[in-house]
């Protein structure tokens, strides 16, 4: 038994030692990408990867003479998995450039990790949590996409003044990203004079919205829905089945492409729904070029989603900065980050530049869902909200005083 034991132990140790240890190759430039490739958010992570690939293809696949190697690391939208994936990329695979993560809570977790690795440069993927950059930002994190509150800039005022909805009910999921979206919507809507009749915070993972729908008070002018993915599809189909009459106002991910192209009849409820976000099916040549390049990717949707656009507008300036600095990371990336913080460029969705917290100042689009002649749904542009900032037009002191996003923020009506 002792002999067996010893051999067993030796085997175990050998396994530890023999496990592969990837060495850095000199000819390739490694860029790590964090994307949700596990669980129900997989479809969004794949979109993100498509966005990165478009950016890489645009620059010819290599920068400053070095071939770009994209190293994908899967997360499952939980903060722990994001940190673990980031550590694998940085500590095991030795990457110095990371694009990602995808979800809001993942972003907050990665921010804490990034602070412990000051010589690694992080660019956002699609994380839209406010505090990724608003409160105690990290010096090595750059977000060229906008946050969830910015995504709803202009919507509250538009809905009140143009659509004439004075009283709305809110249905949203019970975690930080929907809090951010509702924050952005309500800050403007309440300021314009609107009131909120009821707020239904639905627990994560709930699929059955029928009771929530039935509990919505009868006299509301519209229902603001901030649900995404399959939850949005469920809500819409159950709303249709319940014979719901009140019009809907969509959060940015409720009318995102992955919902618009889902299989089934539920999405027809969305036709005519106003929403706002960083993406619209614009008529500009820049957008059309981007959409064409995007559609060449395998399994692409009819039109780029928020996640493809977000990963793209974050990856692109990183590649531009690498080009400018000759991909020289020998100083721990200091020069690269200096260049990055000053970049301002024309993206497919308008001009993007950074504020002092390295958060994007960019255009948002108020859209309405419409049906194309071939039956697919797309987001028709109604109005451009130019160059929104993270403080949404309030002074920074006032904005921060409103407190971090939460179930009861901001106070308004009920």
């Amino acid at each position, binding site marked *: 038994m002792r002999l067996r034991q010893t051999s067993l132990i030796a085997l175990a140790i050998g*396994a530890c030692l023999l*496990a592969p240890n990837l060495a850095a190759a000199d000819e390739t430039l490694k860029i790590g990408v964090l994307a949700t490739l596990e669980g129900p958010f997989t479809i969004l992570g794949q979109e993100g990867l498509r966005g990165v690939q478009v950016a890489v293809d645009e620059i010819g696949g290599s920068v400053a003479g070095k071939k770009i190697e994209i190293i994908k690391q899967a997360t499952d939208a939980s903060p722990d998995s994001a940190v673990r994936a980031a550590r694998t990329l940085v*500590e095991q695979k030795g990457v110095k450039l990371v694009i990602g993560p995808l979800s809001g809570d993942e972003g907050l977790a990665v921010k804490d990790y990034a602070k412990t690795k000051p010589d690694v440069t992080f660019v956002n993927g699609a994380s839209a949590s406010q505090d990724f950059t608003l409160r105690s930002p990290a010096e090595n994190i750059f977000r060229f996409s906008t946050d969830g509150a910015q995504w709803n800039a202009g919507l509250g005022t538009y809905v009140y003044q143009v659509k004439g909805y004075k009283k709305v009910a809110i249905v949203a999921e019970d975690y930080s990203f929907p809090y951010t979206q509702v924050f952005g919507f309500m800050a403007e809507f309440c300021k314009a004079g609107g009131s909120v009749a009821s707020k239904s915070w639905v627990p994560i993972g709930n699929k059955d919205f029928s009771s929530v729908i039935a509990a919505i008070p009868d006299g509301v002018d519209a229902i603001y829905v901030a649900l995404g993915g399959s939850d949005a599809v469920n809500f819409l189909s159950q709303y249709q089945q319940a014979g719901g009459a009140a019009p809907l106002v969509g959060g940015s991910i409720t009318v995102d492409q992955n919902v618009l192209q889902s299989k089934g009849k539920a999405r027809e409820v969305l036709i005519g729904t106003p929403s706002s976000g960083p993406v619209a099916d614009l008529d500009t040549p820049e957008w059309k070029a981007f959409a064409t390049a995007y559609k060449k990717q395998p399994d692409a949707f009819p039109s780029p989603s928020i996640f493809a656009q977000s990963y793209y507008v974050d990856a692109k300036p990183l590649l531009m900065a690498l080009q400018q600095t000759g991909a020289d990371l020998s100083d721990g990336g200091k020069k690269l980050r200096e260049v990055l913080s000053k970049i301002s460029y024309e993206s497919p969705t308008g001009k993007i530049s950074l504020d002092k917290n390295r958060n994007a100042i960019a255009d948002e689009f108020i859209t309405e869902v419409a049906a194309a002649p071939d039956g697919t749904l797309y987001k028709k542009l109604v109005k451009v909200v130019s160059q929104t900032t993270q403080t949404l037009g309030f002074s920074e002191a006032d904005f921060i005083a409103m407190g971090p996003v939460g179930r009861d923020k901001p106070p308004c009506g009920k």
Partner: protein
Amino acid sequence: MSKGAAKDGWSSSLPTRTGEIGLGQALLALALLAYPAIASDFFLTQIGALSLIEGMLGLSLTMLAGYGGMVSLAQLSVAGVAGYVIAIFGQSTTGVHSFDWPWMAIVPLAIACAACASALIGWISARTAGIYTIMITLAIATAVFYFAQQNYAIFNGHSGFAGVYAPVAFGVDWRAPRPFYYLTLVVAAAAYASILYGRRSIFGLTIQGIRDNERRMRALGYNTVLHKVVAWLLSGVIAGAAGVLLVWFHGRISPSTIDVAASLNILVIAVIGGLRHPIGPFLGALVVVLLQTFASDLVGAERFNTLIGLVFLVIVYISDDGILGLWRKAAPWLARADRTASSLK
């Protein structure tokens, strides 16, 4: 261990304590102590320390399942209790309530809370057996997960706590790779030694008796429910210690750390390793951690879950006790060498 028997209960001649520590375990101890000399920082922490921590979690399960016949899926929830106590009463960067107590106060507090939680779970499950224990502990684990996710007042909901790090104590920064590795090694070794000792103690033998035939033990006059609850309490101490190390390892804790998939992972670790000996969970943890870290290199970033699932399936299907069981199956031709060696003593 020198007995080589599958059952750890009734052997005709109980060995002395020193006789227990065979050559194999001494070699293992040396190898583990010397590991930092050859391993990179990544391997030291992400493979070495993590395997030890997850092995400890698996050990708390093995203690209950292998020796007590109670398979519990709530061990990670118990560890989570300890982790959250550290986060709430210690320091964190989340900006939510963290009381900033010194580590010397919160570590014992965390382990005590975990032990109490475990005893409570044990008391709830004491009347169940077999598959029902699995189900009730799964339900408890799920309930704890959902509660932590929905409650912002205590647990800060979905976002959890971040910036929870090991302290700087006695002049050493325990957050650094080498000190942290040695810390986990010492704690895991203590847990392992305590199980090795405990399984031959009166209490340990009583628990195994309850596992084998609870009615008879009751007839003999033992208070089986009390013994079970105490066993849960003790396993809660191990799980709690592992929970403290876990939160220091990740630097954060959130509901996803203790969700259903992670709880099942602990069961996977314990079963893959083998439930019959305390070294089993550590073996299982090493295999699982290696798989999870390198699976995406082997089959790509998208399909690694298939690989992990398949390896798990195959091991459980062909062996009746995980890796240790596989080893025992290969025993016959090894036993020939062993018998020759021992006959020459």
